[in-house]
């Protein structure tokens, strides 16, 4: 398995090559991409912060969970940090399996779990301000 948190551009060829096996007939690859709007705001760019050592551990744990739940052959995940412009890739999740349905389902589950648990945060810089995008715990007004 491959888990990387990096300030460099992500490398889809690398994650796909990492999961390819002779016995795997399917590879699913998810791209998370920076979009130009959120909640009716025009987004200018995003800034990602991460706790890289812990992020790698949490990715490994959720990948092991998903591997156990679905019939997965191999998993690779990369997340980028720092400033990302509209259209750039922030997340790659690649999963290989013997047949296609497991690869699709496991990839979907991995992306969902990733967003709940992995210590990576994004700050949205929009027209007129900026804001850390946080989960459902209410924060005091800062």
């Amino acid at each position, binding site marked *: 398995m491959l888990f990387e948190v990096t300030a460099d551009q992500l490398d889809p060829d690398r994650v796909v090559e990492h999961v390819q096996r002779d016995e795997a007939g399917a590879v699913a690859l998810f791209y998370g991409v920076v979009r130009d709007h959120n909640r009716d705001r025009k987004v200018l760019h995003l800034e990602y*912060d*991460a*706790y890289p*050592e*812990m992020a790698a*551990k949490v990715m490994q744990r959720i990948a092991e969970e998903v591997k156990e739940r679905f019939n997965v052959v191999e998993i690779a995940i990369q997340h980028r940090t720092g400033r990302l412009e509209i259209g750039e890739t922030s997340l790659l999740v690649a999963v290989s399996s013997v047949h296609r349905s497991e690869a699709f389902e496991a990839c979907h589950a991995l992306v*969902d779990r*990733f*967003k*709940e*648990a*992995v*210590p*990576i*945060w*994004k*700050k949205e810089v929009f027209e007129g301000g900026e804001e*850390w*995008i*946080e*989960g*459902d*715990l*209410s*924060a*005091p007004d*800062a």
Partner: protein
Amino acid sequence: MGTAKVRLFARLADLAGTREAEVELGEGLTAAGVFDVLVGRHPSLSGFDAFVRFAVNSEYVPASHPVRDGDEVALIPPVSGGSRAL
């Protein structure tokens, strides 16, 4: 008693104006207690104790987790995707 290293991220790092701190460990200091020490130094963090989660040495722990000499305590704001449940 020793010391612990504290790491701050995202909004909490912005509010405190720092990404790292060192805390002297008093008797029975917990992860939540470490946060209280940081609030004393950076009042802008006050009120965030219900919002932060804790990790010690890169593992999520409850607020009551005891902190030991040499531990790395991370103050973890909610991650971007959503729920707190693991």
